């Protein structure tokens, strides 16, 4: 049992200190990557102020849905090194959240404004709806996936100078509609591939964020979170890695994925 708890402690430390920061920092890197023109010139676009605001809103939504549980990353009872790696995860998550919007939003013009308004409304709606972890992750997958398809497939095809079957089909569907003065720089194919990989990394990182719900779904970690009213909070696994946080009240038995109690309601 000790060996199992030890392995689990190391696995958790690996996820929190290595896997999550590297995934999130990769998103922060890839989110601003652009390849310009046929010469293949690289550009690393820092997040705009609006991307930072949207990133903060997304962090709030993640917190509200308990996808992000800061107390599982930083807590007085954790060792300083564990708190430091938790702080890095939080910082990297913010940078990655901002860069995800950077990569899925057109760089300028009316289209950028439209995308930003769309994101603000969606995030405000998400904050008001208070979805649970699973629903927020599904919703984010749809929102970010749709924005990716819109920017890198639909708009890229519409504005492609050489044309193509997608452009012809879209123009046939939008019969009589012209693009007018709507400006959009068609991204190089490499930009789209990097953006796709970046979004996958971001969603994978969100799924891997430490949370009570995720721990409950993992049979190996049942000992960490399953407890009755008289069971002590400190478990054997906690001894193996002092950085493990205390199980949260809402992680208790009977709290289903869709019936989570909001921390504000307690």
């Amino acid at each position, binding site marked *: 049992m*000790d060996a199992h708890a*030890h392995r689990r*402690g*190391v696995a958790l*430390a*690996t996820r*929190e*200190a*290595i896997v999550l*920061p*590297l995934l999130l*920092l990769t998103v*922060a*890197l890839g989110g*601003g990557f652009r390849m310009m023109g046929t010469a*293949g*010139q*690289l*550009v*690393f676009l*820092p997040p705009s102020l609006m991307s930072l605001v949207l990133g903060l809103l997304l962090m709030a939504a993640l917190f509200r849905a308990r996808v992000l549980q800061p107390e599982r990353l930083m807590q007085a009872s954790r*060792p300083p*090194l*564990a708190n*430091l*790696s938790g702080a*890095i995860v939080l910082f*990297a998550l913010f940078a990655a959240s901002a860069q995800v919007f950077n990569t899925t939003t057109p760089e300028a013009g009316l289209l950028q404004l439209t995308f930003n308004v769309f994101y603000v409304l969606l995030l405000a709606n998400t904050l008001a709806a208070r979805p649970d972890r699973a629903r927020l992750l599904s919703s984010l997958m749809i929102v970010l996936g749709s924005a990716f398809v819109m920017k890198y497939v639909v708009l890229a095809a519409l504005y492609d100078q050489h044309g193509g079957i997608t452009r012809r089909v879209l123009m046939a569907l939008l019969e009589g509609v012209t693009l007018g003065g709507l400006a959009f720089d068609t991204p190089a194919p490499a930009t789209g591939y990097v953006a796709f990989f970046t979004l996958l990394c971001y969603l994978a990182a969100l799924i891997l964020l430490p949370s009570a719900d995720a721990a409950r779904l993992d049979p190996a970690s049942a000992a960490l979170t399953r407890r009755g009213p008289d069971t002590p909070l400190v478990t054997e696994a906690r*001894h*193996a*890695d*002092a*950085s493990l946080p205390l199980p949260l009240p809402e992680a208790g038995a009977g709290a289903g994925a869709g019936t989570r109690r909001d921390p504000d309601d307690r």
Partner: protein
Amino acid sequence: MSGRFVSATLVRGLGLVLSLAYAGFIIWLYTMQPRTMAEVAGGVAAGVGVYRIDQASFDEGLRFFRADKFVEARNAFERADPAKQHAPTQFYVAYSYLRQGWGRVYSDDALMKQALAAVERAVAVAPGGVVRVDDARVTLKTSDELRAEIERNLTREVSDFNPLKVFRERP
């Protein structure tokens, strides 16, 4: 028990080092804005002190430069220093733009702006922020002099209309 604690601590320590190094690399990319993969690779190599220029191409560029074949010289310098991390090479690139754009009656502003960009690249990668070349065939031997001359050529002032200006020496 302490061995187990150490192993989790080691993982966290390793993760911390990796994360900070990776974050530093990302900040460098966004700050320096390398334009090509060669510049990325060269920048990383220069960061760890293993960047070397192609000396043969540099010497060839210098020969072209001294023969006033500036376009050929810049092509050779580009081969010698693809990552634009070698201060003297960038200094000569700037100098080639200056000499090509310099004229007795007027200067080519487009070439002067490229000269200014090149001298700024040279200063950015030079230890101490200044480049000095030991070359008897050039008048301007430091990046400070070179930058000042380029800026003079880019500035419009009353002395530009002095007819005696046509007798000035080429830098």
